[in-house]
């Protein structure tokens, strides 16, 4: 097999709802590479959640019409699918087992309707179920009085249902509408002599919301109830465990989406649909890599690697990267990538659909990377008059200079524009270019402080030479605000400064920063 070729398997389900009317969907989570040779076959295994799949609603009809058929496709996703030497996959056996449960009743059920010797007594068993459920959703132990309330509801509902479980499901639904489940709450201690520290149970909730976007699990709750969670070695071990848990993936995703403003991708229409997911995913995968390997946050400014899949590698002109999964690959200076400033997501969402938009890119740099957002534009800003033939003749950069020279605009634009112009080597899809309409790209600009920025290379060099402190502080600010779930205020300044200093002492390592934030005063106090 040619080392540059690969074949992988993907599962699809499709159905006909009429002649010439159909639907289909990819049902496997990811393509699985086929690496075995023909004489040494291997099993390729997919787990599919049946409840997540759109089935053919007519599949159980007794009549042959409307059409009842459903198709399970095994698709060979390969980069060698044409010509004589196409890569075929030999399949010997296919085994389908459905429905498949690891246990019956499933765990999701037994987690709520727990095993108990009291199952026969609805009053006692009901309290047991409620005790556990309320503790989980409220993230704290519950009092018998609180359980009484819900048992009261249970008693009212019970005659309307035939089974205990149906009744209890209704009662539990009400528990999910309580404010203590919906909001993160902090109880004010009535004892003024006590410290302003949040309780360990509140710490457990903060941790799980921060790193999992979810409620604490049993282990966290138990440690908090025992008063052990705040012990430094216990806390460090828990943070490590939480970051290794698949739920931590939500942290990377939610934080990066908010930090970089990835929802901006929804307001541009020029990204081809098949590329959207990859483009959106790249900065998240990059962050994940920095986090998991505890690398320096300065990698966000520049790195000698990229985290890409095949699609993006092709987009960036990086050779020999196969398959849809993201991975770290070494790059050279010639690739003009590295860090998150030059990911396609940033460059594409800060474009106007046809071409780059230096203004948007400049604002993005100030807001997202340097945490120094410019003020909003003043009212009555004159539009750039594109009916004026003189203006139409200008290059984009000339137009910006022309616009900037208006009195109402200059103060802000002098601050914004140079950052954006330095990105002019990247087009609206983030592809590197050296000419625009047959003119060489001029990506040189001068900052307000007369610092010259020579293109993206210049920006990176300047940031790493002169602005590391500012970027570190910006990163601490963004992460801390996310961890606390609130905007930071002037009063938090000293804490942020101190966290920034500690981060720098820790060689700017992202994993260390997470732990520093979690053990900080800010994170532990009201």
């Amino acid at each position: 097999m040619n080392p540059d070729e690969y074949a992988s398997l993907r599962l699809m389900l499709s159905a006909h709802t009429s002649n010439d009317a159909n639907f289909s969907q990819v049902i496997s989570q990811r393509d699985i590479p086929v690496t075995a040779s023909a004489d040494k076959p291997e099993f390729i295994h997919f787990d599919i959640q049946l409840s997540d799949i759109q089935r053919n609603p007519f599949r159980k009809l007794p009549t042959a019409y409307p059409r009842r058929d459903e198709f399970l496709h095994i698709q060979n996703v390969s980069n060698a699918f044409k010509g004589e030497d196409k890569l075929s996959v030999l399949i010997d056996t296919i085994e389908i087992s459905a429905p498949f449960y690891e246990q019956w009743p499933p765990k999701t059920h037994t987690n709520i309707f727990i095993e108990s010797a009291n199952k026969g007594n609805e009053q006692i068993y009901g309290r047991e179920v409620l005790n556990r459920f309320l503790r989980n959703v409220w993230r704290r132990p519950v009092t018998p009085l609180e359980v009484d309330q819900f048992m009261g509801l249970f008693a009212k509902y019970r005659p309307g249902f035939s089974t205990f479980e149906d009744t209890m499901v209704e009662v539990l639904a009400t528990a999910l509408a309580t404010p203590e489940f919906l909001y993160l709450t902090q109880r004010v201690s009535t004892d003024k002599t006590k410290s302003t520290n949040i309780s360990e149970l509140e710490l457990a909730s903060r941790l799980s919301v921060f790193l999992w976007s979810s409620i604490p699990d049993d282990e966290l709750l138990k440690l908090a109830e025992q008063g052990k969670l705040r012990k430094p070695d216990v806390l460090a071990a828990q943070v490590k465990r939480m970051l290794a848990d698949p739920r931590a993936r939500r942290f990377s995703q939610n934080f990066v989406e908010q930090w970089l403003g990835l929802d901006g991708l929804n307001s541009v229409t020029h990204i081809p649909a098949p590329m959207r997911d990859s483009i959106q995913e790249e900065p998240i995968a990059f962050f994940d890599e920095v986090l998991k390997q505890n690398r320096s946050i300065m990698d966000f400014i520049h790195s000698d690697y990229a985290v890409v899949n095949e699609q993006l590698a092709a987009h960036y002109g990086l050779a020999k990267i196969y398959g849809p999964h993201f991975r770290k690959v070494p790059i050279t200076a010639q690739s003009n990538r590295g860090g998150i400033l030059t990911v396609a997501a940033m460059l594409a969402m800060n474009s106007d659909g046809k071409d780059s938009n230096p203004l948007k890119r400049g604002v993005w740099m100030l807001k997202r990377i340097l945490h120094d957002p410019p003020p909003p534009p003043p009212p009555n800003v004159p539009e750039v008059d594109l009916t004026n033939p003189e203006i139409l003749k200008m290059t984009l950069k000339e137009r910006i200079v022309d616009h900037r020279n208006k009195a109402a605009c200059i103060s802000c634009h002098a601050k914004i524009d140079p950052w954006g112009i330095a990105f002019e080597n990247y087009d609206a899809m983030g592809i590197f270019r050296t000419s625009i309409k047959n003119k060489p790209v001029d990506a040189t600009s001068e900052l307000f402080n007369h610092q010259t920025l020579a293109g993206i290379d210049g920006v990176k060099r300047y940031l790493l030479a002169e602005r590391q402190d500012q970027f570190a502080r910006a990163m601490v600010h963004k992460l801390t605000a996310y961890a606390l779930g609130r905007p930071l205020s002037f009063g938090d300044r000293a804490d942020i400064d101190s966290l920034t200093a500690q981060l720098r002492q820790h060689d700017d390592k992202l994993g260390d920063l997470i732990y520093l934030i979690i053990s900080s005063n800010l994170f532990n106090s009201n």
Partner: protein
Amino acid sequence: MNNKSALLSRRTYLQGTGVALALPWFETFALGKPNANDTPKRFVSIYHPDGVGLPLKKDPAWKDWSWFPQGGEKDFKLTKVLDVLEPLRSEITIYSGLSHPVARKVHGHSNADQYLTGAPIGGHGAYQNTISVDQAYAETIDSLTRHSSLVMSTNGGVGGPRGAQTQSFNREGRPIPAMNKPKQIFDMLFVTSNKDAAARLARSKSALDLLIENTRSLGRELSKRDQETLKHYLDAVRDTELKLVKAQKWIDTPIPKVDTRNLHLEAEPKEAKLYFQTMYELIYLAFLSDSTRVATFQLGRENGEGPHDLLSLAVGLGAAHHLTHEVKKPDGWKNLGTYNRYQAQEFGRFVQRLKDTPEPNGKGNMLDNTFAMHGSASSSFHLSRNYPIISAGGKNLGFNNGRYLKFGKGNEDNQAGAGIDTDSGWQGKVEVEELPLTKLFVTILQRLGVETNSFGGLTGSLNI
């Protein structure tokens, strides 16, 4: 995909549970509060699959059996397909040159799903729909009537993706099951006291009591800022309470008594005429009793089969869907036209009935306060363009009738795609300009009192 559904957000979860609690960030439409005592404004849409006959001009059948009228805005001449509506000429408007841009190259078999939504459902792959225009109106007047809408079809249920058996889709784009048995519809509207609803209501009340009690005890222990947040929460709980009070009102309101003389509740589609007329009569009675102000009725599913195909028995013809495939056989155009003529005739009978009934609590007759629309998402043979649409009524809403309105450019004689009977037709290049049907929807919504200037992602209304 799997990720998404595994990580249902809390909001989504709450929607799905028994307690319908409107959380603060869930704000429903801001709307100019409609008043129960205002003259009702109604919307009804009838959908027929399979489109209409569209012969070429050189075809001898064109003069009599082409669906679209011939002539200008006021001096149009109805062909034999629609001449049954001649007595109602001043009450109807016929439209050409309207279609959903995203569907113009999608096979007609997939199209009933998006007629009222305009969603880019496409022809293949994953499926997602959006809210239909009837529901966009219904949700703004939800509290005024016992039923927010009456959703009917001959086949019933929701059907499947690209094989809808309902015309109505909710705000999440989920299909709303259609009712198809006259007896059930009648019972729902006029008989069942809905014991279940009373029990559900009682449960919701108990749940709210508990939530308020629980919130009170929590509030005492919270910081000032959190108490503020809790206040928003309580506001939402109170809104829910108000909704319950309204719901209670309907349980306590006696069910209206209606005249059942024209109903044949056991009728099935194979007794086409009786079935057809009974279903229309049910819409009429639902409107007359102000049980609802919104109705949709789908005459079968695209691609034929199932009960609706039997409706053409009413005029002695075979399966309805086949009529579109057999237009090139002897009397083909005439047969399809005859079936479409019959559909128009029944629509006309319904319109006439609204016209003959004075508005029970308001101005004019019922038709003047009702926008009734009749149409299909294909014109000729699976061609998802130039939808054949008739509307009637709505005078008090601001609609001027007695007109044939041609929109778009380059297709003044409705010849684009005419005469096709192969699949190359619907797949063919879009060569004439048509306007988005959503523009008509925006006009309708605005005149029904919904403040909006866009629908299905498209902005703009029709200047009619």
